[in-house]
Structures are given as C-alpha cells and as structure tokens.
C-alpha cells in the first residue's frame, strides 16, 4: 500500500527537482550578467537538490522500515548529511562569488548607478593609501 503510494510520489518529487535543476542550467546559459547568472544557477540548483535528496531520503527510509534493510538507513542518513552540506555551503559560496565579482569591478548589465560605490570595505584601505600618496605628492 505504502509502496504503491511511494512509487507515485517519488517520481513527482524527482520531476520537480530535475525541472529546477535544468532551469538553473538554462538560466546560466541565457542570462546577460554575472549577478543574474548567479541568481539562476545557485538558487535553482539548491531548490532542485532539496527535492531530489528528499525523494532519496524517503526511498531509503522506506527500505529501512518496510524491508528492515540496513543499507536503506545508511542511504537515508548520508543523503541527509549531503543535503545539509549543500544547504550550508551553496548560498555562502554564492555570496562570496558575488562579493568577489563586485570588488573585481564587474558592473551589472544595464546598470547606471552603483549604490555601493565607495562603501565596499575591502576597497577602502587601497583608496586611503592612494589619498595619502596624493597628499605627499601635493606637499612635494
């Protein structure tokens, strides 16, 4: 009974996950800009991996409970650990990439005004050095 229900439920979860994975790759191909590509690539793949990993966790728990198979429990718990690793590392990596792209001078597509101009903390020491050098040159 539960087996037949899961045989319908798990392909639905897999289809939702794989649609978001493919949309993430397609957005990476089609968007015009680093920041929009980051938006598509990271968020869509994180959401899709949640669904695929949840379907595999349910599959492993079913094998553990119904068949009393130890391999199923190992698959379920280790997939859960892998899902937690993805959920912790993926947004952090995206944040680091966006910050690096902004600090290395990549402008957004069609941008007119940069609101973070001069407010970014890593740029300030270099700007301060340039100011001091400018003052010394002015004194000379």
């Amino acid at each position, binding site marked *: 009974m539960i087996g037949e229900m899961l045989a319908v439920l798990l392909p639905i979860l897999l289809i939702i996950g794989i649609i978001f994975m493919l949309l993430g790759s397609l957005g990476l191909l089609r968007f015009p800009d680093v920041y929009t590509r980051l938006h598509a690539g990271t968020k869509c793949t994180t959401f899709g991996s949640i669904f695929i990993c949840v379907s595999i966790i349910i599959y492993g728990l*079913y*094998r553990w409970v119904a*068949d009393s198979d130890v391999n199923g429990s190992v698959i379920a718990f280790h997939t859960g650990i892998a899902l937690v690793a993805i959920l912790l590392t993926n947004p952090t990596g995206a944040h680091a990439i966006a910050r690096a792209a902004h600090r290395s001078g990549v402008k957004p597509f069609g941008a007119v005004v940069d609101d973070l101009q001069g407010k970014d903390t890593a740029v300030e020491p270099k700007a301060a050095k340039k100011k001091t050098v400018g003052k010394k040159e002015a004194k000379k």
Partner: protein
Amino acid sequence: MIDLLVELSAEFWIVLVILLVGITIAMYRVIRGPTAPDRIVGLDVINTLVIVSMVIFGVIQDKFIYIDVAIVYAVLSFISTLYVAKYLEGGRF
C-alpha cells in the same frame, strides 16, 4: 511489498542523464564566460549537479560509498570556491 529500486530504476537513470545534460550546458558557460566570475559561477553549478548525480548513482548502484564521496566533494568544492573568490578580490587572506 514492492521493490522500489526495481520500480524506479528507469526514473533514476533518466534523472541522471538530465543532470549530465545540465552539466554540459554549464560547461559551455565555463568555456565561453566573458569574465572570470562567470566561469566560477559555472563551476559552482557544476559542483552542485555532480554532488546530486553522485547521490543518485549511489542509489542506483546500491553502494552508499558514492554518497560519502558526495559529502566530501561538497565540502571541498565549497573551500575551493571560497579560495578562488578570495583570489579574485585581489586580496589579503
């Protein structure tokens, strides 16, 4: 009591093939990216897709060692992404 692995084997294989198609699409962005952050974004997406495809391959083969490898791959790819982003900032560690 039905065997879900036999029941869902075709679905798992189809998901694996579509993930490989997504990796190929992201590979295009890695090769043709106009700037360096574009290539890093492509590598990040490829890392996530490889992690999920390793998990699915472990389920298909019924060997959980692939899932352990996926956990380690997730952490190492995160560290490598952070280091390359730090390098692009032009900066002090």
